[in-house]
């Protein structure tokens, strides 16, 4: 982490009347806007010269921490390195100046590359058709569920309103189902972290629209009963939805389509190395069996985030058939290595073989009162991004670690050494950990105040 914070707001730098550019005089005849659509008061925009704007945002960019700064083990987010060759492909002048409303006849090349990407994604997932339109993961989930709803309704079957979701699922699954107007029913997990097939059986009937699953699941365990689960859900007339968040370990190894899934969304910003988080935008292509293709809803009249798609296209082609198969085993090995090196000092609630990320339930020694939140904050002092914490909800002190395939052995050993050191500090000097971070630009933030009284405008009370 950087230890100096740049904390000015662009509004604070504003000076009345200051401009960066003088626009040329309007050469067209004066035109009055209709009264009902014109402002009565000028908007309160900051007024700055170009250099001030450049310095402001350049200094702010120094506050950022990304995978280009250091290890970023955010579980279920697959924060892999974004190879710079992706940028080279996406920044080609023939792409960056395209306009979404350009006549189709002038973008045949771009269309051909998009079609090529669709074909590659079909091949990787085992699906019959793919749309690139959804702009992020949750947008993809909604699109996928709309396909499923459309399919049931086309058969005149309006009673299928239930979506089954395992209790280990990503929070977006129930959220997307609710947004799509469907009811969420939770399915329990067994001790080994996989779906409880007996519990599932009690929830299957002719009101089930679909079951949404992540495989490997959020505990990093491969759902070994997957073909049985698919058979049970299909038998009652429901469809199977695959949440592509954890597709990374399966690349070129096995395919959701072959497991029997009907609809799937992918996150190009996770699995296919396009920028992630605030640096996005994301891209959430949706695939389905060929027979369902006609139910693709119009969620976006354009092509989706085309330049993001081109980064994924470059990534897949630069790995090729031979090397894409090495992504999963390498990522899984990295995760399993960290797990094995730390399970004496961090509590491992699920002992099974990790096929993806893995989850610790806080420190083994709970007597010090040092929580997962404290460990996460202390990691910042050592220059690491924190893992995903307090998810999945199955455990009280979850710490979900996914190093991805990008990290070298030296990098991972460094991370392991720091987590061991923090476990030691928790014993010898618990206060040090409980009050962390100490070297980060901001010390421990008051997250209760932030949640209860967020200040989202400037000035606070305009």
């Amino acid at each position, binding site marked *: 982490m950087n230890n100096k914070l740049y904390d000015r707001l662009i509004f604070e730098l504003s000076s009345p009347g200051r401009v960066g550019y003088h626009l040329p005089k309007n050469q067209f005849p004066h035109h009055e806007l209709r009264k009902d659509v014109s402002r009565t008061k000028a908007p309160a925009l900051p007024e700055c010269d170009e250099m001030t704007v450049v310095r402001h945002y350049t200094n702010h960019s120094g506050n950022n921490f990304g995978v280009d700064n250091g290890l970023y083990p955010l579980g279920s987010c697959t924060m892999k390195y974004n190879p710079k060759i992706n940028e080279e492909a996406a920044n080609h002048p023939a792409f960056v100046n395209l306009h979404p409303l350009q006549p189709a006849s002038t973008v045949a090349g771009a269309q051909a590359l998009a079609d090529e990407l669709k074909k590659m994604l079909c091949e990787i997932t085992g699906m019959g058709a793919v749309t690139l339109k959804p702009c992020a993961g949750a947008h993809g989930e909604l699109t996928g569920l709309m396909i499923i709803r459309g399919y049931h309704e086309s058969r005149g079957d309006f009673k299928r309103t239930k979506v089954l979701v395992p209790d280990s699922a990503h929070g977006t699954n129930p959220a997307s189902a609710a947004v799509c107007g469907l009811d969420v029913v939770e399915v329990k997990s067994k001790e080994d972290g996989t779906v409880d097939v007996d519990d599932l059986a009690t929830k299957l009937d002719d009101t089930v629209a679909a079951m949404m699953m992540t495989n490997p699941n959020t505990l990093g365990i491969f759902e070994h009963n997957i073909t049985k689960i698919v058979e049970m859900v299909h038998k009652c007339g429901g469809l199977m939805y695959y949440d592509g968040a954890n597709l990374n370990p399966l690349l070129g190894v096995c395919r959701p389509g072959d497991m029997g899934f009907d609809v799937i969304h992918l996150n190009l910003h996770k699995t296919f190395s396009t920028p992630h988080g605030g640096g996005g935008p994301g891209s959430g292509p949706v695939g389905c069996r060929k027979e369902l293709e006609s139910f693709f809803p119009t969620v976006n009249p354009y092509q989706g985030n085309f330049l993001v798609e081109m980064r994924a296209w470059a990534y897949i082609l630069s790995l090729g058939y031979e090397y894409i198969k090495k992504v999963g085993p390498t990522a899984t090995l990295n995760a399993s290595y960290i797990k094995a090196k730390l399970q004496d000092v961090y509590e491992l609630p699920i002992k099974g073989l990790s096929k993806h990320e893995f989850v610790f339930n806080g420190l083994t020694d709970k007597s010090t009162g040092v929580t997962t939140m404290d460990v996460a904050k202390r990691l910042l002092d050592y220059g690491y991004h924190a893992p995903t914490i307090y*998810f999945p909800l199955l455990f*009280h002190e979850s710490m979900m670690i996914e190093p991805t395939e990008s990290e070298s052995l030296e990098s991972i050993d460094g991370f392991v050494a720091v987590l061991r050191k923090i476990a030691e500090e928790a014993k010898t000097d618990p206060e040090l950990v409980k009050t962390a971070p100490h070297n980060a630009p901001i010390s421990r933030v008051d997250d209760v105040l932030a*949640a*209860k009284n967020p200040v989202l405008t400037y000035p606070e009370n305009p």
Partner: protein
Amino acid sequence: MTYFSESHEYVRVEGEFGYVGISDYAQKQLGNIVYVDMPDVDDDVEVGEVFGAVESVKAASDLLSPVSGTVVEVNESLEDSPELINQDANENWIIKVKLSDPSELESLMDEDTYNSKNQ
């Protein structure tokens, strides 16, 4: 007499009414509570069904009613001060319910059983 559910809600029974809240164990696990989503007075609640939610800095959790009945009062002080639950979960109940089926209490745990299960 106070009864507890598997999902960490309690109901303190006084006559034909029950005061429903979350256990001290649950508030500790949730951490600092920042919002409580409550039903309206006169809403019906059903045993095992969602009647609201608590949101902490760690997670949002559904509230499952330990009893069936009609909401006769909600604890309005939680609207501005949800942290009261962290301060005293037993004292700061969330809803007051007119019980429709007191026999439901038989399938809940008493305080000792609950505490011995959740330490």
